[in-house]
């Protein structure tokens, strides 16, 4: 997977101002009655991109996909596919295939016939259909199940049939609504990589909904984090994780420690903040943060150092007592209670953990971090 990673790193059409988006949501609003499911949303996805939608249940992810596939019309705004408005184009004329969250397998057809359905529909010749079906069955590891009916399959197997059926036609744009949620970890990881391979080889554009942030991180070129019908932040997995633009995003992706306080000074992008926890922070600030305002400092647990000795810095260091230790094999998580009562999470790689004299419960320790390890957020 190393080589894949390298290819992906050089793929950044969203940074190129001249590139035309493949999918463009332009100020799209979708209302159901007086409930607004998608609220004035603008979002661009580029050709060959692996794009993930991440967000809590009910935030409008499925609704977005359904509008792209043609099952819902936007209440206002427009969706462009390859520069063409999709307004009024019926689902069967869109070069888009969708995997349904509910699978929607045809109960009267066998697994093989389910997968072949779209291929036969587009008039593909018999031999080619059979070959493609075999290939798809192999992709989802269901070769022995080709002749079963959907009701004779387990939940995870059904999910894989639904995935195979939507991929079979190799549509230019594939929409996957939680494609791997019912699979066990090992199968999920294998399928993830095969999907990425397929997408890479065939040059498809994927838009995928997932609840699993790790999955989104592994597979995506970019991630959109949604909340109640709006996109809060769009960015590469690295950007989303390292530079979340709000507390909501920081909190949604991974673990984070948050300190609240007042900004006292700004110079050269570095802000000084006095926290309510009795120590000073000097850190990179989000553009727009100004002196005197209320702000939050977000830092990931793995960026926090735990030491017995007081570090030689006045800012970005605070003392506390070890409250809880969770040993996770590869790493250890310390929950440290500051004197203010705040609990701070710090993870330490076990390669660095002193085996002879490990830090124990109720010990006094110092927590410290570098100025560029966290970020100061306005909201």
């Amino acid at each position, binding site marked *: 997977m190393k080589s894949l990673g390298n290819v992906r790193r050089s793929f950044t059409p969203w940074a190129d101002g001249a590139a035309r988006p493949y999918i463009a949501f332009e100020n799209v609003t979708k209302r159901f009655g007086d409930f607004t499911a998608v609220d004035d949303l603008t979002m661009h996805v580029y050709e060959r991109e692996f794009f993930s939608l991440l967000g809590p249940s009910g935030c409008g992810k499925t609704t977005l996909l359904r509008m792209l*596939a*043609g*099952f819902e019309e936007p209440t206002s705004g427009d969706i462009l596919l390859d520069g063409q408005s999709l307004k009024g184009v*019926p*689902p*069967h004329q869109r070069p*888009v*295939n*969708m995997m*349904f969250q*509910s699978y*929607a*397998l*045809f*109960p*009267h057809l066998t697994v093989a016939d389910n997968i072949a*359905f*779209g291929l036969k*529909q*587009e008039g593909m010749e018999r031999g080619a259909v059979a070959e493609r079906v075999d290939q798809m069955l192999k992709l989802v590891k269901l070769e*022995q*199940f080709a*002749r*079963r*009916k959907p*009701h*004779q399959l387990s939940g995870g197997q059904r999910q894989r049939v639904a995935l195979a*059926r*939507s991929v079979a*036609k190799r549509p230019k744009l594939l929409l996957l609504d939680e494609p791997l949620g019912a699979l066990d970890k090992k199968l999920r990881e294998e399928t993830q990589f095969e999907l990425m391979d397929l997408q890479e080889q065939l040059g498809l554009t994927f838009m995928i909904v997932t609840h699993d942030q790790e999955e989104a991180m592994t597979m995506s070129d970019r991630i959109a984090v949604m909340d109640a019908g709006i996109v809060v932040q769009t960015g590469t997995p690295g950007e989303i994780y390292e530079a979340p633009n709000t507390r909501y995003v920081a909190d949604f992706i991974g673990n984070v420690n948050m300190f609240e306080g007042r900004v006292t000074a700004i110079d050269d992008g570095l802000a000084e903040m006095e926290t309510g926890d009795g120590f000073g922070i000097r850190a990179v600030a989000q553009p727009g943060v100004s002196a005197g305002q209320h702000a939050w400092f977000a830092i990931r647990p793995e960026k926090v150092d735990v030491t017995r000795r007081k570090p030689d810095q006045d800012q970005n260091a605070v003392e506390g007592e070890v409250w809880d230790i969770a040993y996770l094999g590869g790493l250890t998580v310390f929950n440290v209670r500051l004197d203010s009562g705040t609990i701070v999470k710090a993870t330490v790689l076990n390669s660095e953990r002193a085996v002879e004299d490990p830090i124990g419960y109720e010990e006094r320790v110092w927590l410290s971090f570098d100025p560029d390890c966290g970020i100061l957020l306005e909201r």
Partner: protein
Amino acid sequence: MSGRWTWFNVTSVVLGFAFLYIPIILLVIYSFNESRLVTVWAGFSTRWYVEMFNNQGLMDAAWVTIRVALVSATVATVLGTLAALALVRYTRFAGRTLFTGMVYAPLVMPEVITGLSLLLLFVSINMDRGFWTVTLAHITFSLCFVAVVVQSRLVSFDMSLEEAAQDLGCTPFEAFWKVTLPVIFPAVISGWMLAFTLSLDDLVIASFTSGPGATTLPMKIYSQVRLGVTPEINAVCTILIGLVAIGVITATMVTKQRAVADARARQADPA
């Protein structure tokens, strides 16, 4: 429910079945009676079956009945399925409640009223009463039974199946034809069978709407019985019972075979 045989269970089952089937068994037995007197046993014979087949009036009536039942069941199934689709799919059209009520009303309408009103209609539009008026009348009243049967299946039909079909390139009509219809087909078939049997044994509505040359079997039997029951009638009824029994058994076996085949497939592949 416990599976134990208690005296109470056994007695109630025996009594129930006796009540249901003794009249039918008697009818079948007496159809093989030598004697012309229905209630006096005089030895085994099949002569009434021969006479029945030679009774031109009875045979004509049977033929009319079967044609009426076939045509009316088929038309009622098509229309009833469409009505059910409209009722389930288009939940927001104006007058839906009225439409629903109107589809269901004939279910609870006394047959005499249905028959009479249809008669008045046919008279007022000057339609000659005969085969087509009976057929039309049967379509009207069996349509709502089909609609009810199909509708109850459609309510639990997952609409996303049709969406998936459209997503894979089907027009809305193709999606209905290739996915919805096959999935609801068992309900459509039961609707057809229901309509067919309803038409087969209808006496009241047929009496109102039929005319010369279109006497149905129930009408014929009824008019003959008024002149006295002949063992011939018993023979006709026995054949009808036989037909219905074969239909029911075939339907059951088809369903069962499918279940067995499914179970086999499950065992054949490793899980």
